[in-house]
């Protein structure tokens, strides 16, 4: 297997070229997105609710199909991929969800092993007869997010922050070159949010995995990303670093000035973060 890991940091990895998404009901979710995300970057995506953040990240692994333009990930065209090809693209992209999306009734380890579904033969997945290599990978992933002690616990018995770390471990078990995180901390309290974001940053730093995170809070996004994308009405209205994102940029993204509700650590002052 070739590109399980990112190539040289900085190589173009995700290339949007005129990408647009029109939902089946006719709603335009994304319009005319053209940008390149290099391997190893930590990207934060911000915007109002309904701006198209989820649509943006879900287009990358084909959970939402781009209806216009072309989108390539690691050199493979996602927009036209179907069936096995699409699954190959997805296996290279881990995903972390706002609601964790764990199966509460089964063990943490089983949840993380879901990350191996693409590479394991069908009869192994059916019987749950995982290869010891796969179990090893899952354990490593759990160790990395410091929750390996809970490997045999039922997922529903964990706290929210712990569950989200399991969610990250599941993405890691895929040995992905990219991790997409759709509001990974939206259902967590502030200290736990920082723990989870720290884990994502460590994974980005130590493993060189590209991490794209949708975030509701601007201060979190600025703190935990190399690059900030601002979405509004399905368009990219800002593309730059956190330091560039001043009050006027904020207004262009949110259509109003900053308030306490837009930051996690309650002072509405961008400079403190």
């Amino acid at each position, binding site marked *: 297997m070739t590109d399980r890991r990112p190539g040289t940091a900085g190589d173009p990895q995700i290339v949007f070229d005129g990408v647009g998404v029109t939902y089946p009901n006719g709603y335009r979710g994304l319009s005319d997105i053209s940008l390149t995300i290099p391997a190893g970057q930590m990207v934060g995506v911000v915007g109002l609710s309904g701006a198209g953040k989820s649509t943006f990240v879900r287009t990358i*692994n084909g*959970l939402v199909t781009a209806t216009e333009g072309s989108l390539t990930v690691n050199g493979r065209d996602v927009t036209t991929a179907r069936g096995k090809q*699409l*699954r*190959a*693209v*997805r*296996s*290279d*992209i*881990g*995903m972390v*969800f706002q*609601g*964790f*999306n*764990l*199966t509460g*009734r*089964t063990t943490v380890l*089983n949840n993380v*092993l*879901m*990350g191996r*579904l*693409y590479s394991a033969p*069908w009869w192994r*997945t*059916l019987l*749950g007869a995982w290869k010891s290599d796969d179990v090893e990978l899952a354990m490593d992933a759990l160790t990395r997010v410091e929750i390996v002690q809970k490997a045999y616990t039922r997922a529903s018995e964990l706290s929210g922050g712990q569950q989200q770390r399991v*969610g990250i471990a*599941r993405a890691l078990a*895929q040995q992905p070159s990219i991790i997409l995180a759709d509001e990974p901390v939206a259902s967590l309290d502030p200290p736990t949010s920082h723990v989870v974001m720290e884990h994502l940053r460590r994974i980005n730093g130590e493993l060189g995995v590209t991490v794209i995170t949708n975030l509701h809070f601007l201060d979190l996004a600025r703190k935990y990303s190399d690059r900030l994308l601002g979405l509004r009405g399905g368009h990219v209205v800002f593309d730059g670093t956190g330091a560039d994102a001043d009050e006027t940029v904020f207004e262009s993204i949110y259509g109003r000035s900053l308030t306490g509700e837009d930051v996690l650590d309650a002072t509405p002052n961008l400079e403190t973060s």
Partner: protein
Amino acid sequence: MTTPTAIPAGKAVPPPRPSRLWVRAGWTAVLLVVLAAFWRVNIDWSQLSDFVPSLFHYLRLMFCPPAWSQTSAAFSATILSVQMAWIGSILGILISFPLSFLAARNVVPVWVRLPVRLVLAILRAVPEVVIAILILSVTGLTAWTGALALGIGSIGTLGKWGYESFESVSGGPLEAARATGGSRLAVIRWGLWPQAQPEVLAFWLYRFEISVRSSAILGLIGAGGIGKMLSDNTQYQNWNVVGILLIVVVVVTMIIDQISAVLRQRLITGRWALVGYGARRKALTPTGLA
């Protein structure tokens, strides 16, 4: 801002009583139907006046005392009924399990789902005894064909409970499995099944309880077991044998119900507990089933 209107002094005017015309019309219709049924039905209600004394008369014949000597015969007839129910349930489970996947909205497209659901609906609508009569008229009367009938009779309900529990799982884990690049099979196995498994197993047990009751019925039309012994003995008015049969049926059924309820409780909640009425959680009984 509107200024509050001054409250007029004097008699309070109650709001008009809301119109309940439809509700009343509905109740009137129900009442009329019931009255019509009482009036039309070919029953001589005066017979009821000696029903209670004659019921007591027969109860005395049955239970004072029951034919204890027949206990072991009654017991082995009941055991045969239970065996029929067990085999029938296993057959029903084997056939209905794949069908319930093929009928679930989150597994297959409409054109697969609809025909499968239609078949399940038809199997559910025909009473088991009728299915048994059909099968028995083709295959002859044995305990084995009785079990077959029970199996086919249970496909409809088992299939429905199955697809309903599959459809009620949360979509998140399914999406997560899809996002890892898992195949359709993998998504079902690791996204859907772990969520639905406890309910589905509990339904299997519950269906076995129902089949135990139905198997007693099958005997009445000739499939052997407790029902056969019962119809033979009512025919010849051996009331004290009927008495012991009823005792054995009730005791065995209640024991099986209790064991099964405890196991179902354990499956759903992960705890062992004796199950009374109140302790039984709603989830344990499929919607609209007694």
